[in-house]
């Protein structure tokens, strides 16, 4: 049973005469109007994450992205048919993924999870409102659907697609890959990721109280927005420097007060989850100390950097480890590692770290507060380029 959430109903895989171009004005017009709806104060208040999405879809931003799709060496065209399988519970990813692909002129089918939350419903309402006045080509070429346990639909859309975009971790990628693509098509996959935070003790000590507060506020948003389970949410915090106990103590104290001020609540089940995981890490010798100053914050002392957990261990669960320099972290980083958020480092230190990593791990190095900010370069992919194809012409 297919439920149509956006776009015209009908055979999703039928050949179409509609043609969009890279940066098609009809798509830009549609997305700009959508941005205005999402940036409306009432919406942004209820779902702050939709505000960031609206910002991403402003006309100036869209034109910049289209400009980025151009090539000096070739003619740029839409890739063709794109089948998106976004994650169930990060409500905005499906729009980012779809909007970039639509901007590239593709025909899109987006599978919206049955378990999608209220922010997703708000977005779908906004999409349909804008659709009412949009060029009908949008409804014919852009479809969003929900369907349950139906491998046949997944199989048919996989055969239809020139590009299949799979979000949602290793098991999602493995499950979807059981359905073959056409030989010319390919997958764009977003498997399980881990993200980290690093705090320079010297930088912290040099910062004034307002800067420290701002840093912790940014870190709080990065960590608590999706229960610390978004792939770019920081998990372990590396304290870089020497004798960092005072830095950690002040950081945790500010974190506690900030979480309280912002009203982030941790329910009993999450508090138990964190105990189970922290006790488990203590039992296996990964941590030497654990503190539970409040349900919102669990602080642990890692014994060694390689013991830093790569799996989710609960909302507001932070293993800490002290290292002498960012370079000491390099051997511990791998391909699974995505976002590395930082505070208090110099540009030179960060660049030196990035160069030492040499692309073997870590895709994004961003300041505290920007871990969840989606960019069109994500997980090491230049998405606008992934959504287009190139034709060379020698005259």
């Amino acid at each position: 049973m297919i439920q149509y959430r956006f776009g015209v109903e009908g055979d999703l895989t039928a050949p179409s005469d509609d043609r969009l171009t890279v940066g098609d004005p009809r798509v830009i017009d549609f997305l700009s109007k959508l941005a205005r709806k999402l940036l409306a104060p009432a919406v942004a208040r209820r779902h702050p994450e939709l505000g960031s999405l609206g910002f991403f879809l402003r006309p100036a931003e869209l034109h910049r992205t289209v400009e980025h799709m151009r090539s000096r060496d070739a003619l740029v065209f839409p890739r063709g048919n794109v089948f998106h399988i976004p994650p169930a519970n990060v409500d905005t990813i499906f729009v980012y993924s779809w909007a970039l692909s639509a901007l590239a002129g593709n025909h899109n089918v987006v599978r919206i999870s049955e378990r999608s939350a209220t922010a997703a419903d708000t977005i779908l309402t906004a999409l349909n409102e804008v659709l009412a006045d949009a060029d009908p080509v949008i409804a014919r070429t852009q479809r969003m659907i929900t369907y349950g346990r139906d491998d046949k639909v997944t199989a048919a859309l996989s055969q239809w697609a020139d590009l299949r975009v799979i979000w949602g971790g290793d098991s999602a990628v493995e499950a979807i890959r059981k359905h073959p693509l056409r030989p010319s098509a390919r997958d764009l996959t977003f498997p399980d990721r881990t993200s980290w935070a690093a705090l320079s003790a010297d930088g912290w000590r040099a910062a004034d109280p307002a800067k420290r507060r701002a840093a912790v506020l940014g870190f709080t948003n990065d960590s608590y927005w999706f229960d610390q389970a978004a792939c770019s949410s920081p998990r372990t915090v590396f304290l870089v420097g020497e004798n960092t106990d005072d830095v950690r103590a002040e950081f945790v104290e500010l974190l506690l007060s900030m979480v309280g001020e912002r009203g982030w609540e941790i329910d009993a089940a999450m508090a138990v989850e964190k105990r189970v995981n922290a006790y488990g890490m203590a039992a296996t010798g990964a941590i030497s100390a654990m503190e539970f100053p409040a349900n919102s914050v669990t602080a642990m002392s890692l014994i060694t950097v390689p013991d830093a957990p790569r799996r989710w261990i609960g909302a507001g669960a932070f293993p800490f480890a002290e290292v002498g320099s960012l370079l000491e972290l390099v051997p511990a980083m791998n391909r699974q590692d995505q976002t590395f958020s930082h505070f208090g480092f110099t540009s030179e230190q960060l660049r030196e770290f990035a160069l030492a990593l040499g692309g073997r791990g870590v895709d994004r190095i961003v300041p505290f507060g920007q871990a969840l900010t989606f960019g069109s370069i994500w997980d090491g992919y230049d998405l606008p380029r992934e959504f287009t194809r190139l034709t060379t012409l020698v005259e």
Partner: protein
Amino acid sequence: MSVFTLPQAAKEEVLLKELSALTEHHRENCEPYSRILAASGYEPATSVAQLPWLPVRLFKNLELKSIPDDEVYKVLTSSGTTGAEVSKIYLDKAAAAEQTRKLGATVQTVLGPKRLPMILVDTKAMLKDRKSFSARGAGVLGMSNFGRNHVWALDNEGHVDVEALRGFLEQYGDEPFLIFGFTYLVWLHLYEVAKDNGLDLSNGILIHSGGWKKLVDQAVSPEEFRNRLAGVGLTKVHNYYGMIEQIGTIFLEGPNGGSLYCPDFADVVIRDPETWAEQPVGKPGLIEVISTLPTSYPGHVLLTEDLGVVHGVDDGDWPGKRFSVLGRLPRAEARGCSDTYREAA
């Protein structure tokens, strides 16, 4: 003879001493446990509520035992309610014998010292099913030791064997007899059948356990369960609460119903899931179960994922705390982007 004798203050004095010693014992003999205590900044307790507790789910994730491998006499496993996880509980000979002895002493409080003729509200076929055997089978087998001349209420296909029940009641129905079964099976297969066939269960003593969820779904509350059973003459009814991770310890419903009681060697603490402090009487929270029986594994103080409330202290059928189980705490779920496309998996 009863194991429900100690008023709360006297009990806590005994338990604090024994459990502090057990904590030391496990600390010396179970390395993961000792690491946990060290990491949490363990200091000796000055009250029962201060004793260091372990989340019960740890027994699903870790191998926790305080005996050498060659002294493991029995490994008990729970049925995993969440995925493939099962608890593993390691017993040596002494612990296995002691848990049987203490379970016996507890049920004899309501059964008397003699073995009674017994109805098992279950099917013998279940014992052959290795999958369900671990939890349900172990419960039935364990309890069957306290009866004699057993009759199974359900045949091998799981249908009620009315003839067998009639035969049993003709032979033993005039004297006290024991009935044991899981709560929803008793409701579905004994109560209904007794009502429809006019079976006289008035000399029965029912001991039952198991989650109330299936009954709550049918809108049957513990009070209604008791009242309706009284309608078929069954007035001696004892619910109990227990878990494989504290095998041998059961918290038993008193003769007047409404509350569970702690045997002399066990206790409960209700914890506020926000502050983790002990809740006062009447305030619900997470149930911590405490028992002196776990000597071969560090399961003497466990924080469950069940919610409960203490109704009163030293003011009921038996001395000590009396409490109710309110249901399970829902599991925590991450809303992350590694949240998989489960439908297709």
